[in-house]
């Protein structure tokens, strides 16, 4: 299948191309050709496409076993970069303009709320990048990784979705109607989009990353 057709079928996939470093302008190339060109395991690429396309899609154990997972961590890191360096600053810009139009005290509270949210997300991602991902990379190299176990990650995988949901409710329901309606419409739309993207991101971590690492852990113990 042509990559262009895949993207037309689900436009959300535009977002994941960048996380694989695939540049637009790929012409008539097929998925397999593009994957080969960029050195991506085709099964892995399709796995991510499926998760983004089919609600509650879960790969079977056999599918996971037939998939090269070494791109998973780089993929997740690239997603983090996109959220932190593109989406969140974009939302923040919108929100700041709206806050400027509010009463000063109210605007300040909004700004503070978003600042806290941003801090939470940064902390969440940092923990994954500094603690969890290096552990996985080490496991892939055959390390025993005794200092840590993926169970700890499961327990500590904090919820960063609540505050974004709260922000949606605040902008949608509680901010006085006359404050920057156009700007707000855009902001609400962007928040929904980011929420859904982040939910899928968590799904990948919980339903694909964790089972994969558990298999690695078992393998390395048996060695």
């Amino acid at each position: 299948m042509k990559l262009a057709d895949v993207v037309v079928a689900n436009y959300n996939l535009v977002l994941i191309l960048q996380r694989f470093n695939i540049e637009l302008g790929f012409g008539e190339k097929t998925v397999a050709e593009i994957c080969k060109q960029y050195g991506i395991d085709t099964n892995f690429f399709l796995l991510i496409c499926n998760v983004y396309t089919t609600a509650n899609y879960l790969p079977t154990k056999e599918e996971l076993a037939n998939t090269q997972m070494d791109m998973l961590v780089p993929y997740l890191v690239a997603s983090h970069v996109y959220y932190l360096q593109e989406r969140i600053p974009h939302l923040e810009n919108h929100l700041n303009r709206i806050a400027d139009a509010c009463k000063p005290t109210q605007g300040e509270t909004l700004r503070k709320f978003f600042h806290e949210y941003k801090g939470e997300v940064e902390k969440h991602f940092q923990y994954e990048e500094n603690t969890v991902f290096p552990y996985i990379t080490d496991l892939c190299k055959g390390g025993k990784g005794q200092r840590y176990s993926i169970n700890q990650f499961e327990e500590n995988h904090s919820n960063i979705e609540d505050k974004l949901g709260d922000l949606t409710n605040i902008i949608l329901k509680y901010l006085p109607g006359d404050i920057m309606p156009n700007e707000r419409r855009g902001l609400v739309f962007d928040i929904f989009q980011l929420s859904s993207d982040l939910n899928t991101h968590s799904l990948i971590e919980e339903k694909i990353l964790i089972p994969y690492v558990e298999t690695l852990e078992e393998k390395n113990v048996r060695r």
Partner: protein
Amino acid sequence: MKKRVLLIERSSIIVEGITKILHNHTNFDVVATADTFDRIAERIVVAKPDLILINPALVDFSKRNSFKSAFQGSPQTPLVALVYTYFDQQWLKHFDAVIEINDEPQKIIDKITEVLQNSSDKTESSDLYELSDRERDVLIELSKGQTNKEIAEKLHISVHTVITHRKNIVRKTGIKSAAGLAVYAMLNNLIES
């Protein structure tokens, strides 16, 4: 649209009979049945019933005062008792209606229709979603960063009551985090800064 009924009953004779009566009436559909009270919370999420028909005998007697917590996933869904043995009237008050085993099919349909009518009247009113005065008081204290215990002492209510108010606030506003609630309080001029 057909109304979705979840039936919780052990006797297959009764299940078949009720299902037949409801299906003969074009407005209803029995979307799921269960023969125990176990895992009912999960079933509700999947079946999304408009009404739950349940044999009260399946509720563990010692839990009869707290059995509604199993239906927390959809607190607005009316509960109708389906009885063919004697139950204390006090206990049956937990239900929105009672269907007796000897009721004529038309009477069963009437009772269910009435309950559904009442519940749709209720859910369409925004009163259910406006904060009560007490919930406002709790929200104001919460926004100041007070703990449940501090709020309980200040308002002369139990910690348990504070928690109930908090749950209702979250349900009504859709806002879960303390920081989000503080913004809500601010925008509604409940607090100064």
